[in-house]
């Protein structure tokens, strides 16, 4: 328990520092976990309590993601979003998966590494767009939709990874039943739910907490993945009053997710035989593959490789979802790889996101100078 409190306190300090420097806190939480945990000083051990809290963090992260998925939302330009989304899947997932496989991971492991390699951190990307005051740029809209597209792909990946050892028909029947039940409750119980959420006592927050936990434990009981069900719960409840649910779930998410990141760091075991060369290759590739996919998106959607560079600069950061995949399905070696991937890309990405305008300006003025020098009558 002392370790737990030390970890929390360290996180609080780190959060303050990262907010002060306006860089994402996620890599620092993980690093703190690594330093305090198994791989480092060994002050903090993961136990049942931390495990429970971490799981809460994951559940609330996914619940939040579900709340953002409003099915009826009309995408301004579906074909563009799909184009950009598929470029992302093919390039990033392709490079990640192939590289992992060639570097000696098994097919299954390579798939998980590839998925973690592909999924951008929605939280970091959107916060950095807001903080760097880039919302107006045309690339920002593309980036936001691609990130949402990736979230939907993640649901598919989670579903794929969880069906491995079950009777498919029964599995899908159970999921279908659970989904329709949730949507029916939110449809017919809408007024009741809204009346509960409108109260200003402790009931709304208690209800939100209970709804997420009940769904997760019922899912476990019936043998369907809790992760998917919590996302579905979020999506179903988003049809009632998503803002209220977000408001009530946010404190849980904020606290538990930090614990989730720290204890992910704590459980990292360097003695499991992670190869630093492989990890370095994957980290470098992670940055390069987003450059390729970003420039392709820029050319296909905005007719400009420079736009692609802007997309790249803002989409390098991997984060919460990569870690979630590693925690749910990864071996210790994968966990170490993904931890390094997240730390490197999120720190590197936060700097490119901050200084992309300078980078862009530099390239444009360089080009202009070159163009001037090549003018046939220059110097006369």
């Amino acid at each position, binding site marked *: 328990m002392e370790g737990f409190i030390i970890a929390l306190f360290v996180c609080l300090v780190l959060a303050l520092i990262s907010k002060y420097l306006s860089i994402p806190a996620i890599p620092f939480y993980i690093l703190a976990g690594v330093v305090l945990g198994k791989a480092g000083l060994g002050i903090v051990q993961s136990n049942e309590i931390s495990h429970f809290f971490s799981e809460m963090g994951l559940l609330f992260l996914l619940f939040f993601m579900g709340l*953002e*998925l*409003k099915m009826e*939302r009309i995408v*301004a330009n579906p074909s563009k979003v799909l184009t950009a989304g598929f470029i992302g899947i093919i390039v990033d997932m392709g490079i990640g998966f192939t590289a992992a496989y060639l570097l000696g991971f098994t097919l299954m492991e390579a798939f998980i590494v590839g998925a973690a390699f592909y999924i951008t951190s*929605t939280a970091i990307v*959107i916060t950095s*767009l*807001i903080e760097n*005051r880039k*919302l*107006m*740029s045309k690339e920002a*809209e593309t980036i*936001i939709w691609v*990130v*949402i597209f990736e979230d939907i792909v993640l649901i598919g990946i989670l579903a794929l990874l969880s069906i491995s050892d079950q009777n498919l028909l029964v599995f899908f029947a159970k999921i279908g039943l659970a989904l329709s039940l949730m949507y029916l409750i939110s449809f017919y119980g809408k007024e009741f739910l809204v009346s509960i959420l409108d109260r200003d006592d402790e009931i709304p927050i208690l209800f939100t907490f209970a709804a997420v936990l009940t769904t997760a434990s019922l899912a476990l009981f019936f043998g369907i993945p809790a992760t998917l069900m919590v996302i579905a719960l979020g999506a179903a409840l988003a049809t009632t009053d998503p803002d209220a649910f*977000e408001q009530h779930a946010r404190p849980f998410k904020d606290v538990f997710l930090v614990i989730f990141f720290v204890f992910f760091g704590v459980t990292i075991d360097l003695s499991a035989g992670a190869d630093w060369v492989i990890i370095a290759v994957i980290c470098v590739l992670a940055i390069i593959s987003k450059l390729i996919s970003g420039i392709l998106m820029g050319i296909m959607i905005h007719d400009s490789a420079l736009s692609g560079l802007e997309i790249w600069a803002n989409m390098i950061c991997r984060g919460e979802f990569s870690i979630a995949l590693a925690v749910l399905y990864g071996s210790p070696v994968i966990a170490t790889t993904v931890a390094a991937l997240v730390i490197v890309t999120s720190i590197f990405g936060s700097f490119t996101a901050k200084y992309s*305008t300078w980078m862009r300006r530099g390239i444009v003025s360089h080009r202009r100078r070159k163009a001037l020098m090549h003018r046939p009558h220059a110097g006369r």
Partner: protein
Amino acid sequence: MALRSLNLPGVGTKYEIETDKGDTIAIFFTKTGTIQMYTLQNGCNTPSAAVMNPVEARRLGNILTGAIIEADKESVEIAFSALADLRITIHTFFIPQRIVGKTIEDLQIRAKTGATIIAVCRNDKNIINPPPSFVFEDGDATLVIGESDQIKKFEHEIMVE
């Protein structure tokens, strides 16, 4: 003038106006509670941005609707286009020494100016709809409602030192 509004998942709501001169203004109500305003000059590539909190944004809104704002006085004009373009102005005033100790009835505010005092702010507490027997004290701020002519009259006849 084309207005476009868009809900951006995870970010908030975006409003974008393109002016007749070809400049673009975009406003984002972000989920973090701040409001970001971007302006992009016609023919320019990089927008400039300002981040505001809700109070600042409302102030900016008041200025843009054409209301006069001075450092310590603030006024808002609301136009109801459905009611024959009825324009109502709400204005704040700090009361001058001259009327300290007098009541609203003594000053015959409504009869002389047509404007109505709808609230008085005293020591950070608001008194809504003060009765005619209400006595002004030093440091009171009043909120007056009426048409802009009535407000002007109020300013010239009641507020003069």
